[in-house]
């Protein structure tokens, strides 16, 4: 188990190196000159050339990569071209918002996705199932930005129950009440993913319900509720766990949209702004961290898999 874990973590390294090369290459293919963007419309070609040299952007791309990568392995992601501060601290500023948003979103996904999915499966074919399936298909198909805008319109602008945008840091002014700023964004982000989990829990449970061992459980005289949870849902969880990996991938791209719609100072919005500013080091840093996160989530999913299904041996 431990050796499996270590092996898997070591396998991150080649993936990260390959990913970092790709990221570097693609970012430098984006048209537009960072120096020109930084200096604005009034800059002369001489100013731009001077700044380009100062930032080291006139060097061949492979040398820039080696320089950058040398920093990365020492834990230094470089300096933001725009903020002139270390990339790590720029990302850290957005991390609080994004992490809290992710946690709240995951909570909603589990709170709504799992019980409604179970309900849908246990009442399959009835109006309850049709209603929940209808809602699930609706929320899975509407775009995130659309839902976000309508929630703002209704609950923030119309009813005034929640703030419509921004997120004052909890660590700065210490109020957990600030979490209400994240309520609408996290619901927006959770809706399509919870809908997917509902569909998935439902269909996996219906599959498991057909298996022979469920009949054995019935023959023992267990109650329908006990069978649904202990024998059907528990086994369906194996397929659902795998989907949490995909959900996470979807979450990252949707978070970018949601943070932009709700003007949240998170990492997602930072990426969008950094692309507009051609702030190469920040983009590279964020994407590298996302790749690392993604690999870790996959590892966690695989570990969960081995724990949920005794037939899987983690070697």
């Amino acid at each position: 188990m431990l050796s499996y874990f270590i092996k898997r973590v070591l396998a991150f390294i080649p993936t990260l190196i390959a990913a970092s090369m790709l990221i570097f290459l693609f970012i430098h293919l984006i048209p537009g000159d960072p120096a020109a963007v930084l200096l604005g419309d009034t800059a002369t070609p001489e100013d731009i050339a001077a700044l380009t040299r100062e930032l080291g952007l006139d060097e061949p791309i492979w040398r820039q990569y080696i320089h950058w990568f040398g920093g990365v392995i020492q834990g230094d992601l470089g300096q933001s071209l725009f903020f002139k501060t270390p990339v790590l601290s720029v990302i850290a500023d957005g991390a609080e918002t994004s992490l809290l948003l992710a946690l709240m979103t995951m909570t909603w996904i589990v709170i709504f996705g799992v019980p409604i999915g179970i309900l849908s499966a246990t009442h399959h074919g009835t109006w309850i199932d049709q209603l929940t399936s209808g809602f699930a298909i609706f929320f899975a198909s509407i775009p995130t930005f659309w839902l976000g805008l309508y929630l703002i319109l209704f609950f923030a602008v119309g009813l005034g129950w929640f703030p419509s945008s921004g997120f004052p840091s909890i660590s700065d002014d210490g109020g957990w009440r600030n979490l209400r700023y994240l309520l609408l964004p996290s619901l927006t982000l959770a809706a399509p993913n919870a809908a997917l989990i509902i569909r998935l829990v439902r269909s996996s449970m219906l599959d498991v319900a057909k298996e022979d061992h469920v009949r054995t459980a019935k023959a023992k005289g267990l109650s329908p509720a006990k069978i649904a949870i202990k024998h059907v849902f528990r086994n369906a969880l194996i397929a659902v766990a795998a989907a949490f990996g995909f959900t996470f991938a979807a979450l990252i791209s949707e978070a970018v949209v949601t943070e932009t719609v709700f003007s949240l100072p998170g990492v997602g919005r930072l990426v969008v702004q950094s692309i507009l500013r051609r702030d190469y080091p920040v983009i590279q840093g964020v994407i590298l961290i996302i790749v690392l996160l993604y690999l870790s989530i996959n590892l966690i999913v695989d570990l969960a898999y081995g724990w949920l299904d005794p037939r899987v041996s983690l070697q």
Partner: protein
Amino acid sequence: MALLEVENLEIAVAGQSEWLPVVEDCSFSVDNNQTLGIVGESGCGKSLTAMAIMGLLEQSQVNITNGKIWLDGENLLDMSAGDRRRIMGDTMSMIFQEPMTSLNPVYRIGDQIVEALRQHRKMTSAEYRTRALQLLEMVNIPDFQQRINSYPHQLSGGQRQRVMIAMALSCDPKLLIADEPTTALDVTVQNEVLELMLDLQRRTGTAIILISHDMGVIAQTCDEVAVMYRGRIIESSTTAGLFANVLHPYTRGLLNSIPAIDSETEWLDAIPGRVPMLEEKLSGCAFHPRCSYSQPKCADTLPAALSIGESHLVRCHFAGELEL
């Protein structure tokens, strides 16, 4: 009254547009210390009959349309679902045809064995464990002290079927239904599993319904036999009585096929033709299209159940008249 009495049981399955009868006018009984064999070709309704007794039919697909099932003098079909569950796994239990898939892959076998016991009897955890060990030892699982913590995929097919038996016996049932418990196992293991069941019956007095499509297995284990063809019992008797005096041409066909022990294809060859599909409406005796003694009368009228001798019943117009 015997422990279990099935009276005129009728089961229908959902077809394309209507309910199709699969089991009709089915009556039999079994008492403590007795083993009843139900034998017949694939698809004749053996499993459905077993599931109807056990209470496991999927209501949307399969329905009991008529009949009574008495257990200890109570009609199971009149009971509420909750009352029924109190009996399932306790007073009666079942062993299934598919040992490879009938255990839940995510739980240890020890926990699965005592699950019914947990449901029906209050005991301490230590007592449950002791009982699980005792059951595993009883069904001859080697290294049972370690095996109790194994997962199903770590056991062989024969061992899994033993675990299923241990599971079914955990609450000392009065009635054990074994639906082709050995069909999926190889011949040597088959005999061990059958012996085990009979041995347990000698000790506990459990009534057993043994379902099989193999006359050899039935001859070896059962006190009484009911031969089923397309949803009807066409002949029933004590095992000795049946073998001494076969009255139905179909039973003769089954008996002639004993030598081809476990190969289903050879077995089917022993009786010409095939089992008619459920959708095919048949008038008269359902066996007449395949019967070499068939007369015009056979296609017209359904033969009534004739009582011959003490406990021998047969549904054939020419029972006793044929040289079988």
